[in-house]
């Protein structure tokens, strides 16, 4: 059994996202690995949206390239996506809405007319029910059993019962029966492969990770593609005892999160690049005042408002340099849901251990797309130690006491005898300002330098506490990919495609963008026969960082900044081209 890709498209407002979710969930319940790509636009009605659910018993790391079954809800979908229909593939459409002339079908593909509107009319005047008929036909072609589809549909209505659920189940069965009577299943059709898997978006994984890490407070301002982190936590706020605050702006959001952390809880904020720009000043305050903080930066295509619903990895320079002057930080860059769950937990632990802001770099491709996760990969049993660890010891309490690691004992408001003032100004060990009357006086000039060294000294510890880059794939290969974040997904798929062609490649996956672990990167690149940097930005921002820290440049880059995710075939093509050039 191979893999199958099922695509559905229509206009915004047609319910494509629910069709896609239903397909993805049905496939994941069959025990298959799924990647669900939700391609949408920044409109609530109109425009072209589509969803691709790719499923396989083997791991899938991206949306893949072609589709095997296409459900076209409008003519535009057929026009745009028929060229992607694989040989042996079938397009489902309703001839009452538009026609697909045989001449427009790619060679070796078929069209299956399904009377989705007529099926819907059997039950209701609400035309949205057509989706259920279309889903039924699509499910049949794909190998999704009707009972699995129906159970998924029923569950999608939650506690809702009655006509609307029955109509959907009936229409789905009708569509399924119609396809069964008039077509045969796709050559790529899949079947059950094991126990149901979990299906989640990157943002759900991040939110779940935050809750597991003991986060008790999030303040955020809505911004695609970060908003659904706040949504998930808001939906579970009472159940999990997490305060979720939609702030008046991102300035407030991060300052609230910093206040909450100072006040004694693990806290976070989440945003996209534009909102992160507004947070930058406060990020430096968290660094200066040494307050633990987790900031999720889910990138979208920019600059400025950019492409709000499209993906990019263009904010790395921003995250690296965010804030005036210098303070310690780490930037974690998970590539998929499991990594995102674990990286979020690690981000909270790092923030707490090193008393400094930790950035979790996501992007729209990771944040909003669906991936399956094995239940065993999600360990909820994370130890949450009390933050009230300090006891007065008879000596004067120094919040910013000089230590080897740079981390000083931290008390929380409410603890007697351990009062301190968190300061955004430069301060001495006790937290007293040295920024005004003392500044410029030799003893305090030295104090300032020493305090700077104390804070920046944490970077060494952070480097040791974060995941170094890892070489995935064979140790020896003619080509080494270098990638970070969600881009690693498409690279992993490309490596499988290349391996199938007999071309061995490996991937230097940079899991912690900062601190970079330059020696590890340098050694890996020094060993590589040739390299290909793959990044979703214009200038190759990780490449620039690596060059700055190791002196190693990337003669070959595959950079994408059109807002679309990487497709494995693009990476394969570039790799073949690079290898054709021989060693570099």
């Amino acid at each position, binding site marked *: 059994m191979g893999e199958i890709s099922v695509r559905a498209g229509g206009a915004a407002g047609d319910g494509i996202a629910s069709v896609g979710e239903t397909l993805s969930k049905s496939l994941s319940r069959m025990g298959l690995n799924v990647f669900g790509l939700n391609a949408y636009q920044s409109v609530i009605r109109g425009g072209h949206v589509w969803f691709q659910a790719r499923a396989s018993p083997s791991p899938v790391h991206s949306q893949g390239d072609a589709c095997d079954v296409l459900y076209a809800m409008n003519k535009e979908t057929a026009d745009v996506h028929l060229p992607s229909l694989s040989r042996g593939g079938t397009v489902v459409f309703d001839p009452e809405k538009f026609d697909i002339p045989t001449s427009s079908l790619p060679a070796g593909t078929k069209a299956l007319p399904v009377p989705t509107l007529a099926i819907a009319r059997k039950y209701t005047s609400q035309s949205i029910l057509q989706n259920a008929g279309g889903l039924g036909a699509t499910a049949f072609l794909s190998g999704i059993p009707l009972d699995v589809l129906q159970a998924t549909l029923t569950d999608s209505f939650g506690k809702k019962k009655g006509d609307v659920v029955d109509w959907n189940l009936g229409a789905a069965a009708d569509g399924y029966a119609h396809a069964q009577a008039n077509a045969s299943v796709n050559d790529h059709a899949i079947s059950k492969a094991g126990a149901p898997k979990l*299906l989640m978006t990157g943002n759900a994984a991040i939110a779940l990770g935050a809750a597991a890490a003991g986060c*008790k407070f999030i303040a955020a301002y809505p911004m695609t593609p970060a908003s659904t982190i706040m949504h998930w936590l808001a939906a579970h*706020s*009472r159940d999990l005892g997490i305060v979720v605050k939609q702030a008046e702006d991102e300035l407030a959001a991060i300052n609230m999160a910093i206040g*909450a952390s100072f006040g004694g809880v693990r806290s976070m904020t989440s945003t996209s690049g534009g909102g992160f720009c507004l947070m930058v000043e406060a990020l430096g305050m968290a660094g200066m005042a040494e307050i633990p903080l987790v900031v999720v930066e889910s990138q979208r295509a920019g600059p400025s408002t950019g492409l709000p619903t499209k993906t990019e990895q263009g904010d790395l320079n921003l995250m690296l340099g965010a804030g005036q002057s210098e303070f310690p930080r780490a930037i974690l860059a998970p590539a998929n849901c499991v990594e995102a769950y674990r990286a979020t937990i690690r981000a909270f632990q790092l923030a707490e251990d090193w008393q400094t802001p930790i950035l979790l770099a996501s992007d729209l491709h990771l944040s909003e797309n669906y991936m399956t996760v094995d239940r065993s990969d999600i360990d909820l049993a994370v130890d949450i130690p009390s933050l009230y660890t300090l006891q007065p010891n008879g000596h004067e309490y120094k919040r910013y006491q000089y230590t080897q690691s740079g981390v000083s004992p931290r008390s929380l408001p*409410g603890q007697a005898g351990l*009062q301190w003032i968190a300061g955004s100004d430069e301060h001495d060990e006790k937290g007293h300002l040295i920024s005004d009357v003392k500044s410029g006086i030799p003893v305090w000039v030295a104090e300032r330098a020493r305090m700077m060294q104390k804070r920046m000294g944490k970077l060494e510890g952070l480097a040791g506490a974060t995941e170094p880059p890892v070489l995935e794939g064979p140790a020896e290969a003619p080509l080494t990919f270098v990638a970070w974040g969600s881009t690693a997904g498409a690279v992993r798929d490309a490596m499988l495609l290349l391996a199938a062609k007999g071309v061995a490649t490996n991937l230097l996956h940079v899991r912690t963008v900062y601190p970079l672990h330059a020696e590890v990167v340098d050694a890996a690149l020094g060993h590589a026969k040739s390299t290909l940097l793959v990044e979703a930005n214009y200038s190759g921002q990780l490449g620039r960082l690596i060059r700055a820290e190791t002196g190693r440049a990337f003669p070959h880059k595959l950079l994408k900044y059109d807002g679309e995710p990487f497709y494995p075939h693009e990476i394969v093509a570039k790799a073949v081209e690079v290898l054709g050039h021989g060693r570099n």
Partner: protein
Amino acid sequence: MAGISAPPVTPAVGTLLPLIGKSDTKPTWCPGCGDFSVVAAVEMALKRLKIPSHQTVIVSGIGCSSNLPHFLSSYGFHGIHGRALPIAEGIRWANHGLTIIATGGDGDGFGIGAGHFVHTMRRNVDLTYVTMDNQIYGLTTGQASPTSMMGHKTKSTPEGVIENPIHPLALALASGATYIARAFSGDVKQMADLIAGGIQHKGFAFIDALSPCVTYNKINTFDWFRQRVYKLENSGHDPSDIGQAWLRAIEWGEKIPTGLIYKVDKPTYEDLEEVLSAGPLALQSAGLKGRESLLDEFI
């Protein structure tokens, strides 16, 4: 106000917890600055209410007046310009057993932080916010502020201010603050009374303290105010009457009222945030141990 002592540091029974006092940092304000009265009034109010220093957090932004937390012995947060209120809100929600006082200047609160000022008030977060309003930017050596009067010549407005000043009290009234008062640095006792009232008030208490800058504001001086201020408590003002409150909130010129402008009891944000009904967030359990069923929604 009931404070919650955070574990595991629980004082022995009978121990008298230290009340707030001066810290070992001396104020850096110019001699004669109105802010000396404000720090004294804050200290007096907290002492009178017998709130232990370790259960008090004083939060500020940036500006001359925002140095205030350093001069007292409580916990403090000297944040960045304009963000005292969101920081204070975060602390409040993390541990609503604490007494939290936000302080700062007119530029901090009504200029760069104006958005937070409005939103914190509409939420009725249980905070006390004391602004040291000197109608000038002092720390940056004398530019116009959001409360500088029309025509005021400053370094940034050499021909005089041509914008209308903000009426902080009217803005507070419009935004939903539930305790609104004006104090004057020439009357520390009244100021301490108003701040103590604000701390005791359940909800957002706003005290705009007229606190003259003796160095950069040569118009709105102590003398200028002394000739104009009158006390509302002696003038038959009813602070529960919002109509009267509006008239007093916008009264500015020949006569300037001080005292309690408006007070109303309404549920606070913390009252309405269900999660906080289980006690201060910082003392609640956290994490997902034993919550395996949570994963079922992803099947």
